[in-house]
């Protein structure tokens, strides 16, 4: 946290109504993709005072007017100032959002110097909470977490025919295998120094965002037993071995993220 916002959040915490608990704010943040401070100018319309979070592609800046579908009818009254937690609904010349919730900024808080910066930091902290919770859930769900290096990419070495025969379809995943040399085992048990991780090699739109592997790639990998291909075993050094997958965008992290993963594993 930046120094300038060390004190003001404490003030904010006492003045913001009705929400104060960080968990409540995190719940709002989790459901939101556009978060901004603003002033209700007329029913259903908010003038943006400061943008805290928005997708990169979205045009939204201070002074813009946003149409807000309130979470509760009649809850947004002209003149009200608040931090609005919202999700994008209609993108046209302007933006229409659905309100997830809001934190009212009362006159006392509005008068606090630096309050908007502090509010932004509170939102950022809540986002970090959400991100950590999501990552922790992935870690807990993983059967194995390793730090390692991709030694080789190869076609899958199935030990039995996949559940579904190969089809001519644009959405064929084109399964590939990454042979990962394990430098450090953070969770689970490997059968040796290497693990086999299957991933879709297809460039089809259906696999956009799925992690892909490349020889030489280093990382921290959250692995599941392969239930996707219909043939869960592979072959390595002549031995039948369990194959794994890492199909979620959080399953492949940078090597230096291992420390953060360790911290989350130790936490409550």
């Amino acid at each position: 946290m930046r120094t300038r916002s060390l004190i003001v959040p404490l003030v904010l915490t006492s003045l913001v109504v009705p929400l104060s608990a960080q968990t409540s704010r995190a719940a709002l943040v989790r459901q939101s993709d556009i978060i901004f401070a603003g002033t209700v100018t007329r029913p259903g319309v908010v003038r943006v005072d400061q943008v805290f979070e928005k997708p990169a592609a979205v045009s939204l800046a201070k002074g813009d007017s946003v149409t807000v579908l309130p979470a509760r009818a009649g809850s947004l009254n002209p003149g009200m100032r608040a931090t609005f937690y919202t999700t994008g609904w209609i993108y046209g010349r302007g933006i229409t959002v659905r309100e997830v919730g809001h934190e009212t900024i009362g006159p006392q808080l509005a008068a606090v110097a630096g309050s908007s910066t502090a509010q932004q930091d509170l939102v950022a902290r809540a986002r970090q909470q959400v991100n950590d919770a999501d990552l922790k859930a992935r870690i807990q769900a993983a059967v194995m977490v390793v730090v390692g290096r991709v030694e080789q990419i190869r076609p899958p070495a199935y030990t039995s025919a996949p559940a579904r025969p190969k089809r001519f379809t644009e959405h064929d995943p084109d399964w590939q295998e990454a042979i990962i040399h394990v430098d450090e085992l953070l969770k689970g048990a490997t059968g040796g120094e290497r693990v086999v991780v299957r991933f879709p090699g297809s460039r089809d739109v259906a696999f956009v965002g799925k992690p892909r592997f490349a020889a030489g790639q280093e990382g921290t990998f959250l692995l599941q037993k392969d239930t996707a291909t219909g043939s869960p075993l592979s072959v390595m050094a002549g031995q039948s071995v369990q194959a794994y997958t890492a199909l979620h965008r959080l399953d492949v992290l940078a090597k230096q993220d291992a420390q953060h993963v360790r911290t989350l594993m130790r936490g409550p």
Partner: protein
Amino acid sequence: MRVTTLIAAVAFVVAACRRPPPPGGEPSPPPSPPPPPPEGVRVVDMIPASLSGETWQDAEPFLTVFATNPNLLAASAFTPNPGGPASTTAPIYVSADSGNTWSLRNTLPSNAQTADITHAAGESPALYATILSAPSIALKDLETNDVLSATTMTQDAMRPNVDQPFVRAIRAANTDRLYVGINDFDAPNGRTATVDVSLNGGTTFTSRRIESRNTLGQNGPSIRPAVAQNGTVYVAYFGWRSNAGDTITGDIVVARDDNGATGTTPFRDLRDPSDNQPGRLVATSRTIVFSNGPTLGQERIGSTLSLAVDATHSDTVYIAWADRVGSGDVQTVHVRRSLDRGATWSNDLRTLPNTTNPSLAVADDGTVGLLYQQLTGTGNASRWVNRFEQSRDGFATHKDLVLATVPANAPASQFLPYLGDYNMLLTRGTAFLGIFSAANTPDPANFPSGVVFQRRVNQATHQLLDGSGSPVDVSIDPFFFSVPVMP
């Protein structure tokens, strides 16, 4: 709004006239002014102003018009929910002013985006959609009674293991009949070409198998229904017979049902004289390369098919497909016509090398429209030329319009398809309405028929700009267009 559009188009042409001469060498003679955009033609970049910063590959566009409300249109592309990958809905585009402006609405039940989507109009403003949803790639049949509604579309049916759903709809007996062409990998005996038929507005569906012959184990992905007002339903599909690796040998087949597929054994009203089996063989033993990598420029190939029936004269039906002729082409599009309900077919009316995404439509007066994307030139000089042709004499003569001509090697592909495995052409009243995806550099030279951008651009510098005025990288955008039916 139309006046605004015309002014913007003229402004764009004026900007083109101000391009500086090339540096060095002899001074160039003053360029002759480009011809004005054809009267009545509109080309609109559909990305709304509030998403001016977007750089996604908005490929595989599709369009729906509403017969009883000329102002209302719906469209789609592989545009993701701007909210990001954690979003649980995907967007469609909606226009309430005849396509002049578009908004993006997150109403499809699919994580962030779809893996395939087509749609068709019910009684306005109802919309039916078929999607391959993310992340499962399962088929979802969807509907809404108001395409402008904020509510997530209702799921009528869902099942896995199908490919490329393609829905058409028609109003009959006070209900909507739906015909969803799908490649159903759960179909028996490798005869996967299927039409899911709903005679009650999506309440129930019945899978109708339309392949009557042996296959190599499956049909090609594209199954294309087309419905006439009298209830005649045609379906085109690829009868894949054998393969050597990714090189397929197959037939192009058209089946027909004369009663809206309401009988117990539908799609058997058109038989081939060679074997008396349902499904007329329009062309046989064609070579089709199924390539799931960049093959035609940065685009993949393998299942290119379009079918259109004259809605008010159901005897007339047009087909377009792509195969490899072997004359050095990557693939070639063929256009043919039947004037006797599919019993006999013409030879090629149009033969278009290195072309993809043909889309056909027949106007009320019988004029046929053809939209396609052709790769021209090589290397850095290669271009995707997006053309629209129309003809009233079976393409003995035709009127040709270049809607866009854009570099083919930029932007770099983010995924496949690069432009789409299909696009869409429709007709309503005295206009053809269509949609295609293309590189979005705001250079008027790329849009000889004019163009209007909703997103922020600097026309003088040919730059895309985000909301703050910073430059934005070139990407693939969906473009709506409207062209008057030729007089």
